[in-house]
């Protein structure tokens, strides 16, 4: 059933694993079905189905990465070997690509295809004229980026080669004799995500076997972990936009199910609904945006084709602009960008490993990934790399600061991390907005490790104290859980961006991108935003570490955690509020608090994943060390490995050498020692300030009570900028309250009123006909028809005894007759 794999240009053959990577999501889907089917019977061994499956997938993904390495290498060589005339090889490539497209649409022949194209063309024109002026002006000044690119020594020689994605597809559905496909698109970014998702999912699986042990829905939990992994892995390999939408939503459903895992308590199911509905709002943008692209690209869902057409200027700028703004709405909801970020902190109602997997490391980056995947569209639609600020960068920048601000006022450790995630996702979106594609993906890569590490670390702590409240139940955890503490500190250092931890490299690349890319220094503002963000990140994470690990242990005072090992922050809050701080010492009820009520270090199934993630938080940054600027001494073979391997090269990605329709050339920022040093210093400053404030008690404590302005600021933060009031209270409350009731009233009294009114009117009419005409006129005239009258009267008496609505019968009959007369007369 599978179509022939489309081999790369030239003779480069992808390996077996690359060609068959589609089995990875299928294995996880099977694992979901199997866990659901027989998991209950296996009891606590149900998790083995998922662990074995994801373990297999992880190994497969590693294999895929290894083969990808070879494939990239071969592609490069193939290009070098016949690069005598780069022009020619370029032409060949596009030709090949066109052929591939035709093959993809296979049996229907070129005719149908051509016909479609013709059909669509006028519509594409209808979308709007090319914005000639704009693109011309953008083409004018050679961008800084282009200059930067030339400086990148080693890259020059290979700039021309392309890496054909490995694809495979089958027919999915048919319309108007055109067959649409579903399948796999494997290129660098997908390969990279395969590794990240399977690795983190595997670690989360292992962690969970201890963390949710004994949970009342152990099987369902693991089943949904599997389904989530399947959806996410399928998502990153999506061959077309419709498949992207499908798996995007499926990922959302898994998130819904896992946030609402403990659905007995209303706050949890509320959080699940909020997540799903907020994402649905964004999905409107996703649907509309993809539909626009579908028609603009000549009725195709094919991601490569859409991007290629966008890059070649065959799609009007207006269509691309509108589409990318629509898609931006989807990014805002899925990736927690302002102003649709409100669901993400609430999503912490789910079990912590899920927060690590879904709400920090993988699912929430789906939005970022989508932008990266459709980068041809965004690049040209928003004129990224041009000389003006674009919506993507603005949204990202706002999110960096907005999220970081909120992280300061949380007392729930998971919420600090959630807002931190919001803020970090803001960095990624901002990076994509300024044209630093590779930096964004690299940050996605490193962030996945250290944020998962932080979440799992917080889970480890919470596992010990049965609460997420840093202020009430933690403090001094360092002495009880030294191992958790150190992994947490390492991951925090990575998050803050301390040299040489992972986050340093990726964040620095984003900042360098903001300073160097775009024309006329158009993105410098985002350098400032990013730097302030770094300062804030350092400060709130120091606060978090202080509250959790230092000072006096404040927990152990309310023992009654009735449900054993579950962790719902909300529920814990309730318990704490109910029982108060006084009636303590009931800790004996708690099976885990047997060491005199004091917390203790977690077991190996929790610690090993933490070690691995902390290890990656240290080394992951070296995957993309730039060998430019002050680091130009770095050996070339170990430099920019990430960029080299995972950045797409081909017509579907903005070109490194030629200006696209917008006049901008895709480029990479150089390492800038000034930025690196200053962002590190800002980070240290943030740590220092927070240290002075929390550890040393310096500074104007209590200013929020004394100073009006500070008080207002604090209140705005505590109320999360009032977004929740607006969304939940005013919009959602309004729609399901007054608006819905008004509609129902209209239905009952107006529409139904008309129907019933017609009924009543007909009865009155009938009575008039009977009493006046029939009885007096007709009956008077035809005196002898007593029998008929009696019969008629009986019928009528029956009707009179019935409900008013029964009269509807007559009146409708009358209406029908009237209508008939009316039409016949006409």
């Amino acid at each position, binding site marked *: 059933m599978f179509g022939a794999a489309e081999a790369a240009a030239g003779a480069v053959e992808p390996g077996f694993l690359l060609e068959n990577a589609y089995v990875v999501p299928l294995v996880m889907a099977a694992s979901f079905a199997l866990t659901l089917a027989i998991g209950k019977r296996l009891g606590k061994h149900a998790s083995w189905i998922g662990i074995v499956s994801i373990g297999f997938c992880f190994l497969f993904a590693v294999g895929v990465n290894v083969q990808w390495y070879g494939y990239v290498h071969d592609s490069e060589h193939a290009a070098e070997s016949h690069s005598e005339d780069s022009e020619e090889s370029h032409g060949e490539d596009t030709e090949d690509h066109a052929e591939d497209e035709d093959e993809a649409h296979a049996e229907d022949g070129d005719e149908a295809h051509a016909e479609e194209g013709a059909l669509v063309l006028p519509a594409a024109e209808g979308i709007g004229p090319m914005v000639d002026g704009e693109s011309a002006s953008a083409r004018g000044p050679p961008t800084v980026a282009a200059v930067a690119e030339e400086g990148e020594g080693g890259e020059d020689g290979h700039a021309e080669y392309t890496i054909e994605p490995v694809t495979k597809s089958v027919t*999915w*559905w048919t*319309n108007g004799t055109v067959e649409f496909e579903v399948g796999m698109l494997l290129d660098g970014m997908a390969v990279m995500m395969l590794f990240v998702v399977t690795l983190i999912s595997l670690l989360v699986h292992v962690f969970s076997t201890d963390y949710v042990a004994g949970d009342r829905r152990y099987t369902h939990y693991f089943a949904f972990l599997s389904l989530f992994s399947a959806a996410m892995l399928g998502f990153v390999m999506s061959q077309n936009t419709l498949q992207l939408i499908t798996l995007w*939503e499926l990922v959302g459903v898994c998130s819904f199910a896992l946030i609402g895992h403990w659905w007995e308590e209303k706050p949890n199911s509320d959080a699940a609904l909020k997540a*799903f509905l907020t994402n649905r709002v964004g999905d409107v943008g996703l649907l509309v945006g993809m539909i626009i692209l579908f028609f603009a690209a000549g009725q195709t869902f094919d991601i490569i084709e859409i991007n290629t057409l966008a890059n070649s200027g065959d799609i009007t700028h207006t269509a691309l602009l509108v589409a990318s703004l629509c898609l931006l709405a989807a990014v805002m909801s899925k990736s927690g960008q302002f102003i649709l970020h409100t669901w993400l902190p609430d999503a912490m109602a789910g079990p912590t490993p899920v927060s690590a997997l879904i709400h920090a490391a993988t699912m929430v980056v789906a939005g970022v990934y989508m932008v990266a995947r459709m980068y041809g569209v965004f690049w040209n639609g928003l004129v990224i790399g041009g000389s003006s600020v674009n919506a993507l960068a603005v949204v990202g920048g706002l999110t960096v600061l907005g999220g970081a601000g909120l992280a300061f006022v949380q007392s729930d450790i998971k919420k600090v991390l959630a807002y931190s995630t919001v803020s970090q996702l803001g960095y990624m979106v901002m990076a994509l907005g300024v044209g630093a594609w590779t930096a964004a993906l690299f940050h996605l890569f490193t962030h996945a490790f250290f944020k998962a590490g932080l979440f799992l670390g917080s889970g480890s702590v919470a596992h010990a104290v049965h609460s997420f409240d840093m202020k009430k139940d933690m403090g001094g955890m360092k002495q009880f859980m030294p191992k958790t503490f150190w992994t947490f500190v390492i991951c925090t250092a990575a998050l803050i961006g301390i040299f040489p931890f992972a986050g340093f490299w990726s964040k620095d690349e984003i900042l360098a991108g903001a300073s160097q890319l775009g024309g006329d220094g158009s993105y410098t503002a985002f350098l400032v935003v990013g730097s302030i963000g770094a300062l804030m990140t350092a400060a709130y994470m120091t606060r978090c570490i202080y509250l959790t690990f230092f000072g006096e242990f404040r927990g152990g005072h309310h023992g009654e955690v009735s449900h054993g090992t579950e962790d719902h922050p909300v529920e814990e809050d309730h318990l704490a509020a109910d029982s108060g701080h006084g009636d303590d010492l009931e800790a004996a009820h708690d099976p885990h608090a047997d060491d005199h009520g004091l917390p203790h270090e977690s077991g190996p199934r929790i610690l090993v994943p933490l070690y691995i993630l902390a290890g990656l938080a240290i080394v992951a940054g070296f995957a993309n060390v730039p060998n430019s600027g002050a680091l130009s001494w770095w050996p070339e073979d170990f430099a920019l490995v990430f960029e080299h391997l995972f950045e797409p090269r081909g017509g579907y990605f903005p070109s490194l050498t030629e200006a696209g329709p917008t006049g901008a050339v895709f480029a990479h920022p150089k390492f800038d020692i000034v930025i690196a040093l200053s962002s590190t210093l800002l980070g240290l400053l943030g740590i220092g300030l927070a240290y002075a404030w929390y550890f040393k008690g310096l500074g104007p404590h209590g200013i929020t009570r004394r100073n009006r302005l500070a008080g207002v600021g604090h209140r705005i933060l505590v109320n999360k900028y009032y977004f929740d009031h607006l969304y939940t209270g005013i919009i959602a409350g309004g*729609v399901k309250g007054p*608006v819905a009731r008004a*509609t129902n009233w209209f239905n009952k009294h107006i529409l139904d009123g008309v129907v019933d009114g017609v009924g009543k009117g007909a009865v009155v009419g009938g009575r008039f006909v009977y009493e006046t005409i029939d009885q007096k006129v007709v009956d008077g005239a035809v005196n002898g028809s007593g029998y008929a009258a009696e019969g008629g009267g009986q019928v009528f008496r029956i009707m009179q005894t019935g409900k008013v609505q029964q009269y*509807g019968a007559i009146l409708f009959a009358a209406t029908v007759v009237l209508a008939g007369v009316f039409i016949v007369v006409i």
Partner: protein
Amino acid sequence: MDFIQDWGLTAMVFAPLAGVAIMMLFPKDADDTHKVLALLTSLVTAAIGIAVLADFDYDDTGSLQFLRDNEWINVINSRFILGIDGLSVPLIALTLLITPLVIAYSWNHFPEPHNPKAFLSLILVLHTGMLGTFVAQDLILFFVFFEVVLLPMYFMIGVWGGPERQYASIKFFLYTLFGSALMLLSFLALFFLTGGETFSMVELAERVQGMDIARTTQLIVFGGMFMGFAIKVPMFPFHTWLPDAHTQAPTQGSVILAAVLLKLGTYGFIRVALPILPEAAQSWAPWIGGLAVIGIIYGALGCLAQTDMKRLIAFSSVAHMGYTMLGISTLTDFGLNAAVFGMVAHGLITGMLFFIAGSVKERYHTLEIKRLGGLLVSAPRLGWILGFCTMASLGLPGLAGFWGEFPAILAAYQPAEGLPVELFRGYMVVAAIGTVLAAGYLLWLYQRTAFGTVKDEFVDDPNIHDVNGPEWIAWTPLLALILILGVYPNLLFKVSDGSIVNVASQIAAATGN
């Protein structure tokens, strides 16, 4: 196979009536005999149907197959013409599936006042009417079958229904009849306008093209058909019979009503109204599309205000059929294919939801949402199934509902030539926003009924049990199909596409594009 080719359709359509005749021979109190007989009849009908569908040429779904053309009422030149193409096949398959499942479900879910003989006979009569409508190729024959379904449904609601059954059944009957009367007038008008020689749909379509009928006349004639079909669908603002009928009908009635009867209207649009009067259809399309998207939003808002689970599901039909009608109003292959898919998907999903509502009612003796809760605790499997159907109903990609909605929204971006593009793009956005509201009312329903804890009055209620045998039998095929069609929609698109392409090109040709 000759018998199947020549008489297969006829046998399939009238087999249920034969079953009714046999059931009449047995006394009223032989409950089990009637159940067995009814089930057997429906299975025999399904077997004949499967034989027909197996013999169907799936490479030529665009043309009518199994044609049967006999003399019937010579006085008015009405003939007994049966035939099926890719448009009828999915709906016939749906009908053939739903009826046996409904009968199986009835095994131990009998509504008061019991009387299986009468109840099951009515279902079988209904079966004949539904199948007949989907195979008839002559307008008078179509009309007869279209009306045949009214009476059994009227009695099902009026006799076996809830407390307000009198009002609901009369409203249903008269409202629909009102529409049918106008539709019949339109049929007659077509007959006379084309020279009074035929009621054959195919021939009429050809004749209308060949003649020069005044535009106004065409519009009015289309209007009559519109009323007949739109009330059946039902479209806003002619939908008010639906929530009452659904809420009051017994579970079986609701399921059939939702799964098949509503489709008679949308089927009528695609089979009769559009091909015969394409130019009028083009003029009407913006209005139909407008009513459709109003219906999407209006139905959703109506759902949010409901306090009764069954009434909420009923209202959701208004919204869902809005997507189907939006698809039809675009007059494109995308839209029409979406409509056919939407019909089947809505039949499966909403049929399932009504089954569930019936089973919840049987256990809790109430469907008032605020008294329910914790279904996942007291009947976990039932709760899961409800969750699955909720997701399907809100149009989750990967489940059947999505394929009825997405292509319809897609089609509205670029409707057929000659339709106002900007207006339809507006419709597209509204329809897309409708998906948010759909998720809202369905998940809110799910949260209030399935999540949370069991209300005090139902704790330890022995009457509340999980899914039982007949329920599994009735539901498994539906659930499986919702998933299978969702994952691999080509199963259906491939069948419907041929005839849809025909309809779309007929319209395009007639409207001069």
